[in-house]
């Protein structure tokens, strides 16, 4: 009797687990495809990666990434393949070499250069501004008028 019921009970635990394992595998592939696709630029769009782009070429590139992920290629192998076909242009982050260094360093150069210029200008303003002078002494007529007005208000 125990054996009769034990098999269906066991299946209740095994079948959903097998299903879950399948879902997890698929998600891992999707996740890797997404990670790689987000690093590749859509070559017919403006500043969009192939994951976010709706262009047919981007869709085909996503499929090409997926096929290579399923084949077991590494992230670097897949990125290298696309780089070999389209060059630096396809990389959302251009490789840190040659003239590309300009892209990476320009924001910092502009920030430091701009900061230095701002500092120099502000310093110049401070140096050029004459020190504040004490107010001129009150003459006797004005002093008496003010006293009178104060007394009137009391």
């Amino acid at each position, binding site marked *: 009797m125990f054996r009769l019921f034990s098999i269906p009970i066991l299946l209740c635990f095994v079948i959903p687990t097998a299903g879950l394992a399948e879902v997890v595998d698929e998600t891992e592939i999707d996740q890797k495809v997404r990670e790689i696709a987000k690093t590749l630029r859509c*070559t*017919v769009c*403006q*500043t969009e990666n192939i994951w976010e782009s709706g262009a*047919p*070429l981007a869709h*085909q*590139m996503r*499929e*090409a990434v997926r096929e290579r992920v399923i084949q077991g290629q590494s992230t670097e192998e897949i990125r290298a393949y*696309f780089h*070999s*076909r*389209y*060059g630096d*242009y396809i990389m959302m982050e251009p490789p840190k070499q040659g003239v590309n260094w*300009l*892209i990476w360093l*320009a924001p910092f150069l*502009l920030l430091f*250069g701009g900061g230095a*210029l701002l500092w*120099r*200008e502000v310093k110049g303003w401070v140096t050029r501004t004459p020190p504040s002078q004490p107010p001129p002494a009150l003459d006797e007529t004005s002093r008496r008028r003010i006293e009178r007005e104060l007394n009137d208000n009391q």
Partner: protein
Amino acid sequence: MTRTTQITILVVLFALLSLFYQGLWGDPRHIPPVLVGTRAPVFEGPDVESGEPMSSEQYKGKVILVNFWASWCQECKVEHENLLRLYDEFKDHPEFVMVGINYQDEIPKARAYLQRYGSSFPHMQDVKGALAIDFGVYGVPETFVIDKQGVIRHKWIGPIVDNVYTNLTKNVLTPLLQRADTQVRPYDQAP
């Protein structure tokens, strides 16, 4: 701040902005093609008209002109007559082959296109766009010339018209076909 410093800063800023503009919104036609001078990918697929399998392996040792096109592409229609003329000009050369690759298309539409505009050389299907990615294609039409050693020697993005036609036939195809070097170097030894 001196006037010279101000002008220098403006020039540097303008140069940087120009570079960023070119990088972000520039025309991909002006991007240097990375595949020119490298080994051409092997391409294979069914024939558009007959459905029979085709492969670039059968053209080894020949100068191959590969043209990517689609029935929905307006510029392809503009160049189509020139492609037929080009094929007529070189078809009798024993070492010349011309292959069209039909890109992102529906086969009935592609067949109707060839029937309407004419077809004198074979065309291969690339329904999934995998061949186009292998060739680093941005859009159609794009044309490649592969030499006898299997190395891509020329790439043109856009229609083959006017000066482009003259340059392709006189400065690219003719010299490649006239070269006495007919010994085929294995693909894996190509640069």
